[in-house]
């Protein structure tokens, strides 16, 4: 199969749309890591939790009340904000002064716990199992089956929604961080928390706020994840966390707009690499994921040229 222009542009478009979702997923992780230096390995599990909630919503609420399941992404966001706030106050706040390892282990335990809940069901809510359609319930709504056609190109509706959401929400977050008092307090705390405390900033409140905001972003991403992908309980660790890490490192840790740009870049690289992998002559029968090989090779090359990431002077620097 030869590489046509139309296929190539279509791959670019798909990559950009996919990249919006990546940026949305990674932004919360980047914010939390930038401000409190807590490596929240449960971030992927948070996203799966939100996807789980949207899927339950589309199973239980939509058939009864005829509410569009897409609206549940806002309730997801609210729910994850609550989850994130309580996780910070109950776990992280008590141990963040003891060093790097204890908060890391706490979020690791949390990710195993959430994964367990998603694969076994929470109370009356059935477990995620895409082979029985439960992991893909929200996906079966009209969004992912319809595509917007522009000329010879197709935009998958759910992915386009994630793209629009990222392009709207992340610049607003950036404005919040750079223009409002609370946002500036967050940036000050991430630069030097001791100096911020001496200047009269309540750093506990700032950390709580950043954890809540980061988790709310995970909720937003998770709700959209239920529409774009078939959700499994382990997707957080196997699919999302790797992408989040790559996007966060490329974007420059703590930089929101950098994360957005890196999300697009990673989305395009992945989509074009899988197109190239598809068009290779079939005598090269690789039993390997060539797309991820190419993605990570490009990732290493970019890091060699710019070790601080694309926008290395973000709020963490």
């Amino acid at each position, binding site marked *: 199969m030869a590489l046509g222009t139309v296929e190539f542009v279509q791959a670019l478009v798909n990559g950009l749309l996919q990249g919006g979702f990546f940026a949305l997923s990674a932004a919360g992780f980047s914010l939390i*890591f930038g401000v409190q*230096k807590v*490596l929240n*390995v449960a971030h992927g599990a948070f996203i799966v939790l939100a996807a789980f909630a949207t899927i339950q919503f589309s199973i239980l609420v939509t058939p009864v009340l005829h509410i569009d399941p897409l609206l549940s992404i806002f309730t997801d966001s609210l729910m994850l904000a609550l989850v994130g706030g309580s996780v910070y106050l*109950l*776990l992280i706040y*008590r*141990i963040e002064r*003891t*060093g*790097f*390892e*204890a*908060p*890391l*282990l*706490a979020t*690791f*335990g*949390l*990710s*195993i*716990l959430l*994964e*367990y809940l998603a*694969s*076994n069901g929470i109370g009356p809510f059935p477990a995620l199992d895409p082979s029985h359609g439960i992991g893909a319930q929200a996906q079966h709504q009209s969004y992912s089956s319809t595509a917007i056609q522009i000329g010879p190109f197709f935009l998958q509706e759910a992915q386009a929604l994630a793209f629009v959401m990222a392009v709207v929400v992340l610049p607003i977050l950036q404005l919040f961080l750079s223009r409002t008092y609370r946002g500036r307090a967050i940036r000050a705390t991430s630069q030097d928390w001791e100096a911020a405390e001496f200047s009269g900033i309540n750093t506990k409140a700032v950390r709580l706020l950043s954890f809540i905001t980061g988790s709310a972003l995970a909720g937003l991403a998770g709700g959209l994840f239920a529409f774009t992908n078939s959700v499994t309980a382990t997707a957080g*660790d*196997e699919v999302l*966390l*790797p992408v989040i*890490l*790559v996007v*966060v*490192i490329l974007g420059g*840790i703590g930089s929101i707009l950098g994360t957005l740009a890196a999300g697009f870049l990673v989305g395009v690289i992945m989509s074009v690499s899988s197109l190239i992998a598809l068009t290779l002559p079939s005598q090269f029968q*690789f*039993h*390997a*994921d*060539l797309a*991820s*090989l190419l993605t*990570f090779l490009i*990732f*290493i090359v970019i890091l060699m040229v710019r*070790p601080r990431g694309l926008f290395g002077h973000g709020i963490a620097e």
Partner: protein
Amino acid sequence: MADRSRVWRFAVGMRNPSQITLLISLFFATVYPLTLSTEGSRVLSVYAVYFMWISLAESWNLVGGYAGLLNLGISAFFALGGVVGALALFDGFPFIISLLLAGFAGAILGVALIPTFRLKSFYFAIATLVVPLVVKPMVEFLGNRADFTVPQTVILTPIGLYYSGLVLAGITIFGAYFLMQSRVGFALRALGDDELASSSLGINVLLYKSIAVLTSGFIASAAGAYYLQIIGTINTTLFQNLNFSLFPIFMVIIGGIGTFEGPVLGAVVFSLINYYVTSQFPGSTVDTFILSLMIIGVAVLLPRGLVSSLHELRKRRTPIPVK
């Protein structure tokens, strides 16, 4: 003569109660299989996992505990060791050679980590978390498959598995001990405490960090080749398995970070609890649930680990001397 006095000093150095306990338990671990009948020796394979975790936790401690470099990607070394071990066994090498080859592969992967040393601690941690993700597709590409299953004929018998594990764990423990008593160990602890101060005192930071990462990579990969003997197959999803990166950290935290006996204690406590919980709920996944609560509980209640928390308790009991 000088050498002999040095060895003597090492031996006399082992007088801390926990170190003596360790020596005694190693002795019992050596004679234990002799008390079993031929039928009963099957139970020995249960203990293989203990030795594997001891080696892995000890290898993490070399870098994370002493040198203060938080390596969150040790599963890359572990899984690479498993893959290289499997390839060596395919080519007809004996088990011991497969272990060594895996170890050398791990050390080579350690060399690839050297450019990340200039990153500050948090950034080093996040960079190492990506290492398994980078190595995985490369291994799949070069090996041209994702599943490395070795034939049953090259798998050790339970008693062979037990003793080779004991030797691996023993070499790791004493290797870590002697390394820490040597110039390298002092340099590592110094730069773990304060990198700038130790480099100004003439410690070659890059050299000693490289020694730590290479040694740790060697041990972790050998442990991976040993793991292959336990389960008989390695899938490349092992690279992404966070458990193998973070359980060793959990064990080191429980037992006491930066001590050579801490990882052993942590690995044994963890494996005992894990074994007990799994045997209480056969055929169910409730053990995962309990394990996750245990990790969260330890992280929140004992963030400095079991041993140092006990020490703190004892310190609190002894009255403060009045000047």
